[in-house]
């Protein structure tokens, strides 16, 4: 099924949580709403599910206006951040609940629930209570439960937010595989850009109740539409300047800004990963001094001083750093092949 949201608006006690949001999710697509907490992304999801009533705008599911249709009749599967499993029911009863309330017989619904528990890899735990499960297992039960009434679309509200980093990564892979297998239209809400990039066909970046950018993951990362998107989806160096002769000057360095008018105040953003550092001068390289080296796990972070009070951060893969043998105080040369220039607000 497809989702079409038009000019959605939701106000809580005078605070505009969702401000004129329009979006489309095609049948079978996996789309993510990515944004910081409080950006209104969860509210959009809850409006689509029918758990919140929008103050304005319309919601269509499969080209049918469901804005005033009660939640029970929207046929959506909803997965909550804190699982929301029914504490007093076994896993089997939890998964069978959606069929139970629709009057499906006990034998049939238990059979279906068993199949779903198998799908999420929890065969043999039918008689367990939710309290006897780990967080990751609980979330898989919640997903099986949401799928039981055969919903037309799946809405996931920060589903891995309460899990540790390793488990999150594991479940991410598993969820994408599951989506490819059952091909259910899915809308995910998350604040984790890795999650959004790894899972989605398309990402919508949300900020202050509005959609800032809508694109494929790669494009969001490489061509952020705004300064907010650029800073939200990854670490950045940020410098400010004025556009002169088609570029912004920062110390001796020049960043091309042909899309901006002369004299505009602009901010330049580039990722530490995109800074290229060499020990020997290469064409287009600018000299600088390494002021500090910090170990970050897979990468090393170099603080490089270009001129007095002009520092930038570069992230170098550990192997490369080891081969180059960078030391604090050493003179190096930097190049920034990829930078984003935005007009300052």
């Amino acid at each position, binding site marked *: 099924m497809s989702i079409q949201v038009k000019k959605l608006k939701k106000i809580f006690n005078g605070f505009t949580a969702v401000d004129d949001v329009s979006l489309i999710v095609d049948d079978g697509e996996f789309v993510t709403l990515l944004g910081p907490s409080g950006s209104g992304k969860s509210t959009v999801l809850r409006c689509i599910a029918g758990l919140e009533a929008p103050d304005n705008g319309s919601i269509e599911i499969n080209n049918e206006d469901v804005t005033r249709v009660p939640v*029970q009749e929207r046929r959506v599967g*909803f997965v909550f951040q804190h699982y929301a499993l029914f504490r007093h029911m076994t896993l089997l009863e939890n998964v069978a609940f*959606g069929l139970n309330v629709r009057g499906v017989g006990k034998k049939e619904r238990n059979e279906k629930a068993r199949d779903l528990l198998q799908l999420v890899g929890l065969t043999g735990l039918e008689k367990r209570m939710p309290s006897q499960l780990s967080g990751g297992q609980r979330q898989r039960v919640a997903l099986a439960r949401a799928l039981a009434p055969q919903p037309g679309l799946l809405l996931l509200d920060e589903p891995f937010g309460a899990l540790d980093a390793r488990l999150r990564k594991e479940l991410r892979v598993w969820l994408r595989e599951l989506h490819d297998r059952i091909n259910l239209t899915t809308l995910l809400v998350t604040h984790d850009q890795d999650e959004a990039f790894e899972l989605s066909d398309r990402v919508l970046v949300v900020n202050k109740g509005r959609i800032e950018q809508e694109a494929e993951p790669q494009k969001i990362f490489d061509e952020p539409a705004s300064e907010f998107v650029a800073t939200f989806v990854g670490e950045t160096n940020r410098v400010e300047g004025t556009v002169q002769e088609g570029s912004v000057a920062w110390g001796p360095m020049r960043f091309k800004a042909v899309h901006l008018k002369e004299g505009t105040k602009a901010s330049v953003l580039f990722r530490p990963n995109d800074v290229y550092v060499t020990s020997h001068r290469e064409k287009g390289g600018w000299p600088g001094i390494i002021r500090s080296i910090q170990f970050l796990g897979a990468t090393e972070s170099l603080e490089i001083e270009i001129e007095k009070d002009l520092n930038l951060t570069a992230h170098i893969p550990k192997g490369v750093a080891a081969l180059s043998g960078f030391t604090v105080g050493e003179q190096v040369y930097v190049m920034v092949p990829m930078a984003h220039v935005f007009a300052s607000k």
Partner: protein
Amino acid sequence: MNNTITEKPYVRYTLIFLSLTFLALFLVVPLITIFAEAFQKGWGLYLTSITEPAAMAAIRLTLLTAAIAVPVNLVFGIVAAWAIAKFEFFGKRFLITLIELPFTVSPVISGLIFVLLFGAQGVFGKWLADHDIQIIFAVPGIVLATLFITFPYVARELIPLMQAQGNEQEEAALTLGASGWQTFWKVTLPNIRWALLYGVILLNARAMGEFGAVSVVSGHIRGLTNTIPLHVEILYNEYNFVAAFAMASLLALLALVTLIAKNWIEWKKGE
């Protein structure tokens, strides 16, 4: 035990001794006295005392009052707790305070409120007299006063629990296609069942044992408007100690059963 984090032995033993002595003097001794006095003249008189017509009438009235107060306040308690825990509305804090009112007002005042409302000189007194309805000095007054006094028990148990549990499970049930009614019976009620039972046990004990408010509205008509506590007072004032303590022993027994039930529920809740 680590000496750096605990009191000196003599402090510990003094505190334990003091609290146990206090407990024995003020709780255990009176309890034993009730039963000792009640059985002073043997089983025969005890049984006669609690089966004579006026005593049976008092027991019946007490059971009737509880039979009305418990289900009514059970329903109102759930409704009030639901409204407070699950919705945001104007005047919510005021409502929470109001629910506690019967606890903070002296029971005698609570009874007096009903006399002022429904008594012969009361606000609705004339209208009630014209329609030949008697509330004060009759069973309806006793039931109303008891309802008022026992209103907070269930709501007070449920509000913090329901607030802590939040709405997520109910929302999940709704997205799975459950109606509001199904959600209540299959999700909300099972989640609050132990707290609910706990509230009901306390509510029942108070409904049967209430003296002050009921005393004001009752009129003390023997065999008609006396509950067990009121009957105990009348017998005592007549120096009929065996009968008075026999009736009192019924309430003491109720208290013991309540305590055991309360502990059992707490243990189940913790499970």
